[in-house]
């Protein structure tokens, strides 16, 4: 039964990926991309990786999908269904087709080589999960994924947060898009009511995810993604205006989580090395870092959507 389910999942993944790439209609391609993201989240869940499943659903499918839909809205005049003469259809010339063909050939060969190589993988020599399990008591948290992300490999996470911050700064550099912002239409009253109802619940859930991260799937990234989704929902319901250039307070909010993380990392140098948590204080310090990151990551992810969103119209 499980094998059948997994087989169907694999087929659906391949099909949605292929259709998303091959569809000449961009709107359909975006929807298929979101479907692909959700199926991928299911696949992660089947692989017993609920943390990745949560992140994939929230960021891979949710936020990226919303960004793609938003970009689509700017590319095409009017809203709703794409116009048939829209630039969505790529010119079907021979060079383009040959290019697609060669890319497909290379990708296919690579996939075949990968599949072949994966069936002859040896058993890993180094058994990291055992080392993680052996050191859990000293990590300050009970959930192995959180222990790896914030303690054992916390330095990677510090730099990853810098990556997210720099993505937003890059967006600030590009400035507002040259597209024409449409006049704001009347907000959908139903959406408004829904947002008023849902957003407090979403913020509450974000708080829960942050807290739960210490002992079960959850944590700052998922909580931040939820906060960002709440902000996007508020914006769609026209309860939250788009951002222009961020002011001092907003900049503090965007960089604050990173600065707390950086400060803790530097202060812990006194313990012997970067990010060396004393086991007794590890839990509290990790919670402090994660709380800061939740707010900042929420703002950064929301900023990718809200920054320079202008007075655009949403259906």
């Amino acid at each position, binding site marked *: 039964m499980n094998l059948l389910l997994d087989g169907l999942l694999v087929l659906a993944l391949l099909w949605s990926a292929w259709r998303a790439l091959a569809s000449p209609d961009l709107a359909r391609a975006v929807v298929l991309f979101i479907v692909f993201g959700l199926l991928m989240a299911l696949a992660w869940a089947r692989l017993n990786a609920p943390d990745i499943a949560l992140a994939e659903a929230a960021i891979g499918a949710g936020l990226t999908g919303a960004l793609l839909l938003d970009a689509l809205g700017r590319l095409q005049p009017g809203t709703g269904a794409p116009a048939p003469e829209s630039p969505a259809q790529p010119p079907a010339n021979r060079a383009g087709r040959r290019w697609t063909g060669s890319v497909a050939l290379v990708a296919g060969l690579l996939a075949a080589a990968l599949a072949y190589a*994966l069936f002859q993988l*040896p058993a890993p020599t*180094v058994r990291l999960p055992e080392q993680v399990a052996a050191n859990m008591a000293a990590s300050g948290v009970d959930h192995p994924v959180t222990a790896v992300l914030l303690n054992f*490999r916390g330095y990677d996470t510090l*730099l990853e947060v*810098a*990556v997210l911050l720099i993505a937003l700064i890059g967006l600030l550099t590009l400035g507002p898009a040259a597209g024409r912002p449409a006049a704001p239409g009347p907000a959908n009253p139903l959406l408004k009511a829904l947002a008023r109802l849902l957003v407090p619940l979403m913020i509450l859930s974000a708080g829960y995810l942050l807290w739960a991260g210490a002992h079960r799937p959850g944590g700052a990234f998922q909580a931040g993604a939820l906060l960002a989704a709440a902000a996007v929902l508020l914006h769609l319901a026209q309860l939250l205006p788009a951002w222009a250039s961020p002011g001092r307070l907003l900049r503090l909010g*965007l960089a604050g989580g990173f*600065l707390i993380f950086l400060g803790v990392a530097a202060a812990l140098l006194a313990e012997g090395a*970067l990010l060396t948590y004393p086991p007794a204080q590890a839990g509290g310090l990790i919670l402090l870092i994660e709380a800061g990151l939740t707010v900042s990551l929420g703002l950064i992810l929301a900023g990718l959507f809200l920054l320079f969103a202008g007075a655009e119209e949403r259906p």
Partner: protein
Amino acid sequence: MNGLLDPLPWLILLPLAWASLAFLLGPGRGGRLALAGLAGQLALALWLARRLIEGGPVSHAVGGWGAPLGIDLYADGLSAVMLLLTQAVALPLAFYARAYFAQGAGQFWPLAGFLLAAMNALFLAADLFNLYVTLELLGLAAVGLVALGGGAEPSRAALRYLVVSLAASGAYLLGVALIYGSYGTVAIAPLTPLIAAQAPLAVGLAAGLMLLGLVAKSALFPFHFWLPPAHGGAPAPVSALLSALVVKAAFYLILRLWLGPFAPLTADWGWLPALAGAGAILWGSWQALRTPRLKQLVAWSTVAQLGYLFLIFPLFGLKEPALQAGTLQAVAHGLAKAAMFAAAGILLKATGRDAVDGLAGVAGRLPLTLFAFGLAGVTLMGLPPSAGFLAKWLLIDAALEQGLWPLVAIVLAGGLLAAAYVFRVLRQAFLLAPEAQQFHPVPRRLEWAAFGLAAASVLLGLRGVELMALLGIGVAP
């Protein structure tokens, strides 16, 4: 041991701190902060070099766990040389940038700070996944800097750069995943003997994917197509940072992997990067001779000069001379190219347009800048006593010793071509200015920064012995 007195983590923390504080201060602010931070970083890099000379390679176990559970930082002679180069190029460029962006630097300082933090973290990393994170930070900061030029053309160049950079990172990450799947660790030190003992097909694929991604990031011919628009279209301080340093980071990593964990797999393949390098030298120089725009000329010259770095790969039969030639070329080109882009930026500001044939008359107006351009050119051509001469000399010597005379021919031809495109600029500059030509005044500080970098690239040739002694620390024969 007290971690507060270890230069390794501070080389990463310091730029991260001033970059994020500059972001807090707001657009255009943070230049002074950056100067202070960079001065501190240069001192840290010198301190690290001293430590290496006294006691050999050093490492730092982040989190106190130690690899493979935790992440280690590691510095040997090669890392120290690259770190010194990075801070030594960045500090004068920061002086330059402060004068250059008189009308507002936008997000230059935060982006530059994160870029330098990523470079330093990359040179200190000893973990394949940690290296991926530093590559991501480096790539995104570099793309943001390219977009700083504003307008449609730099934005297009930045997006193209972004796509190449992300595809390359993706290939690298896929390789890391395959390696983790094969051995269960991504720390380089334990991986090296494991790969030497047994390398299944997945590891060969991983090595290919990771090296291919890095080659695309280092803009080696024929993956150079993104470089001239990105480096040629960005503001001059950005072009200088990117051309002098960022492409070298990918090269450094290729060198590390090639000689380190992947050595058992790559031994017979050295001719491949060398072939591409030869192509880069010829094609890049040819394009530099043809382009009508000054900054494009300098950018194409980067494509050509990067080619030399890859000529060393078939010469690793004698590891140390080849490594010395490659590293010295990276250092010499780093200083010279920073100087050349800085000088080109001044000439652009003064003449008001980016054209080689608009330079007539600058010899009389901006002699110091032109002198800087010429000195940098001396290094690129490989004339004595410059560091470029020493690099090419070592390369030719190593090639002759191993009987690879085609490499010698390529190096000599490349030097002649470099002379041709440098003199193309100098010849124009010495022509009389047309009556209608107007020159805008430029701050002297800009000229001195360019001159300082150019002089360093030439004079470094006299300090080659010390540099080679530092480089030799921790290199297995």
